[in-house]
C-alpha cells in the first residue's frame, strides 16, 4: 500500500509536469510541421507566463490571465513569422532573439510594474483568487477512501487544474486538425514541399502565419499554466528550459501528437522522480539526480543519432521559402 501510494503520488506529479510540455510540444508541432524551426518555445512560454500572471493580478481573474497570456504569445509567434516568413530571416536566430528578448522584457517590465525584483505579486492572497484552482471531479470525495479506485480516481485523475485536462484533450484535437482538416494538410505540405503548395495556388506565407498562430495559442496555455495555475506568481526565467524540453519531446515523439504526448509524459515522470528524491535507486544502483534530469536530453540525442528508431524532421524545416525569380 505504501508503494501504491508513492506510485500514485509520482504519477500525479507526472501529469502536472507533463502538462506545459504537452502544450508547448503541440505548439512546436504546428510550426515545425510547417517548416519553421521553433527553438523559441522557451521565450513564448515565458512571455505568456508573465502577461498571464500580470493580467490575472490586474483584473483579479485567472480567465483574463489566460486571455492575456495567449494573446501575448500569439503576438510573439507572429513576430517570429514576420521575421522568418516575410523577411526570410534565419529561423534559429529569430528563435534566439525571441528567447532573449522575452527573458529580458519580462524581468525588466515586471520590475517596473511591480517593483518585486521581476516577480508579479502573488495571485492568491486574502480574498482574491486570481489563480486557477484544482478541480474536484464528481464523486471524487466520496470515492477517496475506497482502496485502489480511490487512489487512482480521487488522487490521480481528479484534483488537477482545468488546464491539465485541456492539455490531454488538446492532443486528439491537434491530431484531428493536423491530419484530418484541409488546414492541417496544407501545414504539412508547406513543411514538405512548399513549391508544390505554391503551384496549387495556396499561399505558403499565409499557411505558415496561420501555423504560427496555432503555435502562439497553444504555447500560451503552457505559460499561463505555469504562472497562473501552478505557482500563482510569475518569477523571472520560470520557464527554466521547459520550452527546450518540449522541443526535445516533439523530436522524440517524431513530430506526431500522440507520440509527442508520450514523450512529454516520460519526461514529466523523470522530472517527478528527480524532484522527489535526491537520486533514485535503479536496479540496486544509486542514480544521481543530475543524471535523471539529463535523461530527456540524452534520450533525444540518442534518438536523433538513429540508435533507437529514426526521427525524421519535416523536409524543408529551417529553409526560408523563396519563390523562383525570373
Amino acid at each position, binding site marked *: 500500500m505504501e508503494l501504491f501510494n508513492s506510485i500514485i503520488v509520482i504519477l500525479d506529479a507526472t501529469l502536472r509536469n507533463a502538462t506545459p510540455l504537452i502544450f508547448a510540444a503541440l505548439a512546436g508541432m504546428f510550426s515545425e510541421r510547417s517548416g519553421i*524551426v521553433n*527553438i523559441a518555445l522557451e521565450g513564448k512560454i515565458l512571455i505568456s507566463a508573465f502577461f498571464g500572471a500580470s493580467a490575472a493580478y490586474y483584473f483579479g481573474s485567472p480567465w483574463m490571465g489566460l486571455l492575456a497570456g495567449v494573446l501575448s504569445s500569439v503576438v510573439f509567434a507572429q513576430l517570429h513569422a*514576420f*521575421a*522568418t516568413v516575410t*523577411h*526570410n*530571416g*534565419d529561423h*534559429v*536566430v*529569430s528563435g*534566439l*532573439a*525571441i528567447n*532573449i*528578448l*522575452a*527573458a*529580458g*522584457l519580462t*524581468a*525588466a*517590465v*515586471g*520590475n*517596473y510594474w511591480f517593483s518585486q*525584483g*521581476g516577480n508579479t505579486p502573488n495571485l492568491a492572497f486574502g480574498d482574491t483568487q486570481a489563480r486557477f484552482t484544482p478541480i474536484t471531479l464528481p464523486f471524487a470525495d466520496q470515492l477517496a477512501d475506497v482502496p485502489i479506485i480511490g487512489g487512482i480516481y480521487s488522487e490521480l485523475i481528479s484534483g488537477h487544474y482545468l488546464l491539465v485536462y485541456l492539455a490531454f484533450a488538446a492532443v486528439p484535437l491537434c491530431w484531428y486538425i493536423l491530419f484530418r482538416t484541409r488546414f492541417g494538410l496544407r501545414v504539412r505540405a508547406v513543411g514538405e514541399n512548399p513549391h508544390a503548395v505554391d503551384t496549387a495556388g495556396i499561399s505558403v506565407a499565409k499557411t505558415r502565419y496561420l501555423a504560427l498562430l496555432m503555435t502562439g495559442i497553444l504555447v500560451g496555455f503552457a505559460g499561463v499554466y505555469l504562472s497562473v495555475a501552478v505557482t500563482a506568481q510569475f518569477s*523571472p526565467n520560470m520557464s527554466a*528550459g521547459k520550452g*527546450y524540453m518540449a*522541443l*526535445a519531446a516533439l*523530436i522524440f515523439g517524431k513530430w506526431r501528437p500522440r507520440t509527442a504526448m508520450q514523450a512529454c509524459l516520460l519526461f514529466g515522470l523523470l522530472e517527478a522522480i528527480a524532484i522527489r528524491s535526491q537520486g533514485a535507486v535503479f536496479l540496486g544502483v544509486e542514480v*544521481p539526480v*543530475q*543524471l535523471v*534530469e*539529463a535523461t530527456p*536530453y*540524452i534520450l*533525444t*540525442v540518442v534518438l*536523433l*543519432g*538513429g540508435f533507437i528508431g529514426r526521427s525524421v*524532421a519535416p523536409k524543408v524545416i*529551417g529553409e526560408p521559402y523563396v519563390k523562383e525569380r525570373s
Partner: protein
Amino acid sequence: MSQQRIPAWITVGVIPLANILIAAIAAGLVFLYLNINPIDALQSMVSGAFGSGYGLGYTLYYMTSYIFTALAVAVAFKCGMFNIGGEGQAYIGALGVGLVCLGLGGHVPFIVLLPISIIAAAVFGALWALIPAALQAYRGSHIVITTIMFNFIAASLMNYLLVYFLKPVGTMSVESAVFDRASWIPQMHEVFAFFGIRIAASPLNLSIFWALFVAFAVWVFLWRTRWGYEIRSVGSNTSAARYGGISISRVTILTMLVAGALAGFMALNVVQGQAHQIKLNLVNQMGFTGIAVALMGRNHPFGIVLASLMFGFLTQGGSELQFEYSVDARIVVVLQGLVILFSGALQHMMKHPIERLYLNYARRRDANADDQHPAEA
C-alpha cells in the same frame, strides 16, 4: 543581377548600421516606457563602460569572453553549421581549466601551467563539441538540436561533478576549491603594478591578449590555410565541395573541434583569470550572447572583435543603469535581444529598401553623367 551593382560599403557598412539604428530606436522606446530618458541612459552607459579605469576594465573583460564564444559560432557558421553549444562547450572547457589549476596549481611554475591549461580548455571544449559533430557527420542528426541538448547535459554533468567531486568537504555552496594563487592568470592591474603603474582593479586579465591573438589566428586559419578553404567551401556550397573531393564528414568534425576549443578558451578568462574556482552557471548565457556577437561581427574575426567591444559596452554599461535608475539589471538582456532581432532575424528587412534607394540614386547619377558627356556614351 542587380546585386552585383551594390557596392561593398552598402552591404557591410550602411545596412548593418541601419539595423543597429533600428535596434537602438526600439531600445529607446523601451527605455521611454520604463520612464528613463534614453539619451541620459546612453550617457550613463558610456560613462559607466568607458568613463573610469574600473568600468573600462570590466568592459574589456566581458569583451574577452565574447570574442571566444563568438569565434566559436563564427567558425562553425563558415562551415554552414549553427553552433548553439558554446554555452556547454565553455562550461566543459572550464572543467578542463579547473582540473589543471586544481591539480597543478602551486606545484609547477605558472609559465609551465599556462600552456597546459590552455590546451586543457581547448581539448575539453572540443571534446564536448565532438559528439554533436560526429552525429551530424555520420548520422545526419541536426547540429542545432544536438548542441542545445548538449548544453543541458553539460549543465547536469557539471552540477553532478561539483556536488560529488569538486566541492570541498564541509562547504555549503556548490563550487570547487579556490585554485592556488600560482595558477591564476595575472590581472591587468597586477601587471601594471609590477611596472609601478597604478590602475583601477578589475577582472581584466592577460587572457585578452590571447583572445586578440586567437582572433587573428582564426582569420589566418579560415582564409590562409587549406583547412580553412575546405571549411569555407563546404559552407558555401556543400555539393560543389563534395564534388571537389572534400570529405564533408571530416570537415564537419574538424570545424566543430575548432569551434569547441574556441568556446573552451572562454574559461581561461572567466575561471582562471577571474573567479579562480569552478562555479555553477559560470558561463552565464555568454555562449548564447556569442551568437549575437558573431552575427553583428558578420562572422569575421575583425568584425567580431569590434562587436565584442560593443557587447562588452552593453553588458558593463547596462549594469551601470541598474545603479543609476534602479531599473532591473536584465535591461541589458533586452538590449541584446533587440540587437539579435534587428541585425540577425530581421537583417533583410532594411536590405531591400536601402538597395533600392541606392539603385535609384545610381541610375539617376548615371543618367545625369550621360547627359553631360554624351560623347562618352
